[in-house]
């Protein structure tokens, strides 16, 4: 059956490329035609894929790959690269958000079909893949590495789901190869090395904030690893992301920030935004449909949300120049594809905003369970840049911005209670799907100084007890290990599920407090991972021009999609000792102990005697003289 499908997909690709090749100018009809094939390809792909988690990524990949294919065929004749074993792609997706903000997402992907982990064979010739990361991968036997630095919090209720979610602060999760014997040692060294590479405080990752989630973080790439002994996950919610983290990140790109999309990354603009997140994802993937050979994928992403709506001096318009203070002049010469996408799904007739320059090229992709339409600008074509040799995308809002989104899955978290002794963590998870229940995996990693009481754990949905079907709990060890709580909770349709657990705040040693102890301590975001029923499957009016045979039963790969939602990090106050008086405390306590010791010592070693008062000094002197004179002493 699988072989048959693969065969089918090959046929599809052939048909598609033959369709794409002769047409020099793409039309909207053609783009619509493509979707049927796209679906079949992505279906095959997901059938072949190993983990459900990789679903959304896969869909992206498949749509990417297949759009690229149409281009590479046109290019290959002109360029004919000499059997390059690595390739680089860059793209920028711009999505006008409902709230009036602009979401810009850069994605850079480097593929390389080498094997870092092979014994005895040292990879020393690097072309596009950054050498610093390649060496790290081979030295520490890393199977998969995901690292993200985020400044600000992604507001799901206003902005919808991001393409690649990330929690505030730094997040690092790594799957090690199963030949590694000392995983903790490797992890420790790896965090220190990465800390150097990215100029971040990743060296503060140690055993006290590292966990091994049993179910929430499965490998996204090849390999069906399920033994979570080789997984390490840590977050630093306090990490501040700034220019010094961006610069080394940019240096990993083949073109640096000299050419291509990366010229837009000027830190003074990027960090003047509501949300900034940069990430590096490395994983092994299949190189072709049959998965006959393995390739390493390095995916660098940078997501920014600009709040141009309020800072635009009343005018609701934005352009590349306004956002980044740069315009695009060329694609990265090393890139095999370089594109800019603008999401125009909510603007099919141009009534919401006006986009200039207009593009004839349209693309469609199923992203996060929703079919989106994009205007595509191909930077590898000269005509994109027009007469001015510069590409400046301009969008002028016409209508009012839309109403609030209701994402299907949404989670938030807060601390309840007062005083510095106890407290309660509330995690609220919303399922906004009108009629479908689905399970979510909730993962919480709480530092040891908040002592969780698992017997106070309650899960309620619709004011009824909702017993989790799976609970994995690892209690904390003081100064060694954080709490890890993972639960599988079934969310009823259209409901709010509240998870509460009580904790007690510990008094720490005075050296264990941060320099500003009364600011509080951060607790990393909890992670909600779920397969969410798709919006596409939810849609009942199939008015779009699709073939009738495709629309009766909702297609499998679109029926649900994987999503990960991060809640807010918590800021928890702990009781503090007085930092100014360690000497005083040591002296005073020792005094009390000494009073105890002294009084017991006194009573133990001495005996009661009748007090014979000693004669006064004058008498003693007189007696001394009398003794010398040989006269009888005074009494």
């Amino acid at each position, binding site marked *: 059956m699988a072989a048959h499908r693969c065969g089918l997909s090959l046929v599809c690709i052939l048909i598609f490329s033959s369709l794409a090749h002769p047409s020099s100018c793409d039309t909207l009809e053609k783009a619509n035609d493509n979707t049927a094939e796209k679906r079949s390809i992505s279906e095959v792909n997901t059938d072949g894929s190993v983990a459900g988690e990789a679903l959304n990524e896969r869909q992206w990949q498949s749509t990417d790959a297949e759009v690229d294919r149409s281009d590479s065929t046109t290019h290959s004749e002109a360029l004919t690269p000499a059997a390059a074993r690595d390739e680089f792609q860059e793209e920028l997706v711009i999505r006008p958000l409902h709230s009036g903000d602009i979401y810009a997402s850069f994605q850079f992907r480097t593929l390389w079909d080498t094997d870092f982990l092979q014994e005895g064979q040292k990879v020393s010739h690097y072309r596009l893949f950054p050498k610093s990361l390649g060496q790290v991968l081979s030295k520490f036997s890393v199977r998969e590495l995901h690292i993200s630095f985020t400044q600000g919090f992604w507001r799901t209720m206003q902005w919808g789901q991001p393409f690649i979610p990330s929690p505030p602060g730094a997040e690092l999760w790594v799957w090690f190869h199963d030949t590694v014997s000392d995983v903790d040692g490797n992890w420790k060294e790896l965090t220190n090395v990465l800390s150097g590479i990215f100029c971040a405080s990743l060296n503060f990752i140690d055993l006290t904030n590292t966990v091994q989630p049993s179910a929430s973080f499965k490998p996204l790439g090849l390999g069906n690893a399920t033994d979570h002994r080789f997984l390490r996950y840590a977050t630093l919610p306090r990490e501040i992301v700034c220019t010094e983290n961006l610069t080394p990140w940019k240096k990993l790109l083949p073109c640096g920030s000299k050419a291509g999309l990366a010229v837009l990354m000027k830190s003074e603009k990027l960090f003047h935004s509501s949300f900034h997140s940069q990430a590096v994802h490395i994983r092994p993937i299949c190189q072709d449909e049959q998965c006959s050979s393995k390739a390493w994928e390095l995916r660098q992403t940078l997501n920014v949300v600009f709040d141009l709506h309020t800072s635009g001096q009343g005018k609701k318009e934005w352009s590349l120049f306004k956002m980044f203070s740069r315009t695009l002049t060329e694609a990265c010469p090393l890139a095999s594809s370089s594109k800019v996408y603008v999401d125009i799904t909510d603007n099919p007739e141009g009534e919401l905003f006006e986009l200039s320059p207009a593009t004839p090229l349209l693309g469609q992709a199923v992203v996060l369970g929703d079919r989106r339409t994009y205007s595509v600008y191909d930077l590898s074509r000269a005509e994109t840049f027009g007469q001015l040799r510069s590409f400046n995308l301009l969008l002028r809002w016409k209508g009012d911005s839309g109403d609030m989104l209701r994402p299907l899955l949404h989670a938030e978290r807060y601390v309840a209670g007062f005083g510095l002794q*106890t407290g309660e963590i509330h995690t609220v998870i919303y399922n906004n799907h009108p009629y479908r229940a689905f399970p979510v995996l909730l993962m919480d990693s709480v530092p040891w100084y908040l002592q969780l*009481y698992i017997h106070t754990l309650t899960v309620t949905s619709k004011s009824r007890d909702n017993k989790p079907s799976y609970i994995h709990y690892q209690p904390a060890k003081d100064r060694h290990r954080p709490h890890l709580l993972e639960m599988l909770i079934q969310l009823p349709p259209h409901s709010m599920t509240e998870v509460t657990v009580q904790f007690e705040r510990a008094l720490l040693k005075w050296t264990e407090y941060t320099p500003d102890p009364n600011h509080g301590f951060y607790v990393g975001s909890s992670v909600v991972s779920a397969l969410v029923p798709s919006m596409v499957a939810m849609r009942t009016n199939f008015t779009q021009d699709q073939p009738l045979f495709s629309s009766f039963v909702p297609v499998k790969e679109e029926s649900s999609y994987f999503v990960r939602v991060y809640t807010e990090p918590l800021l928890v106050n702990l009781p503090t*000792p007085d930092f100014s008086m360690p000497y005083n405390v040591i002296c005073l306590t020792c005094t009390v102990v000494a009073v105890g010791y002294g009084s017991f010592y006194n*009573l133990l070693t001495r005996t009661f005697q009748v*007090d014979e008062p000693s004669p006064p000094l004058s008498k003693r002197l007189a007696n001394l003289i009398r003794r010398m004179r040989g006269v009888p002493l005074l009494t």
Partner: protein
Amino acid sequence: MAAPLTLLLIVAVTIRAVLFRSSWAELISERVEVVSPLNAWKRVVEGLALLDLGVSPYSGDVFHETPFMIYLFHFVVDYAEIVFMIADGITAVALYLSIQTYNKNVFRKQKYALESDRYPADCLELLRSPKEMFYIPLKVAMFYLLNPFTILSCVAKSTCGLNNAIIALFILCTLKGSALLSGILLALATYQSIYPLTLFAPALLFFLQRLYIPVNLRRSSFWFFTLQYAFIYVGSLVVITGLSFFLLGSWDFIPSVYGFIFSVPDLTPNIGLFWYFFAEMFEHFRLFFICVFQINVFFYTIPLSIKLKEHPVFLIFMQIAIISIFKSYPTVGDVALYMAFLPAWSHLYRFLRNIFLVSCVLLACSALFPVLWHLWIYAGSANSNFYYAITLLFNFGQILLVSDYFYAYLRREHHLTHGLYLKKKDGTEATLVLK
């Protein structure tokens, strides 16, 4: 005498039952003075919950009870309130019977001494009369059962009440002369909270005295009995620990219970001296001071045993008091146990030097604990030093109290041999001093 004791028990149980049903119970069970990380009921429930989840309770740092406690409460967790009330009742009855036995012994010895005319003539007013001694056991039971500290401890369901019951039973068995039961119960008390091992010395001294074996290192009978008692004690300790191993299938509880007691990793405030001291300690002196403070608890055993070798019951009192002052996680339940003995030493009252001051300090501290805790933790208008100051004063008061009783006891003994009204060489009235 049974009727007043029954009445007392009924009153005590009523007070506890009312408090258990009131909204105060939850408030009390959160008080740091009443529960410590070692004996909080919340942590017992947490341990049971972890066991239900299939996680070893000792894999985390919340549960520090011994395996026996898990298995006890595994069966009686629903009747916990009754268990704690029964434990308090047992402690009170055991103390009542022990003091009754002790008083009988004291009176008998006093009679022999009188008959052999060993007391100086002016000491008659120091001697104890049966009339005065009659109500002492009841007073002891009352001091334990109606002490607010005990009531709070019981309402908070602190497992300290159970440890107190074991120690009280141990005292009863010792005073009744059952070396076997005494050894087993002492092993159990040691197993529960390690510190009671210092009670080995007074128990041994008591048995030796009872069997008229002189404490003489060259006598084989002394060694024979000592080894016998030590064998019972160590043997039962080994058996109990082994049993816990078989109950749990691992030795995890050793570091989690005894390591926790000795290394003091949890600095949650309590009424003791450890928490703030080690929160403010310089890291490289930490180990040194932990050793010093822990040795301090055991340090007094040998000198006290030498000094008080004729008075093992008073030695038991001293040891319990020292443990409850200097242990790493003390609670008011520990204080209540040694305070219950105070009526037994009511004849020392005339020699106490500063009982008024000490009582005022202890009362004021007990009232200030919740006030300063509130100011620090909830109101935010005070800081940790306020609460620390009051724990310091409270311990200072306890030390004064214990050393005062020790002084009074020694002084009375001195007067019983040398006469009450001592004269100087020149015939004027003399004052006694320690030299």
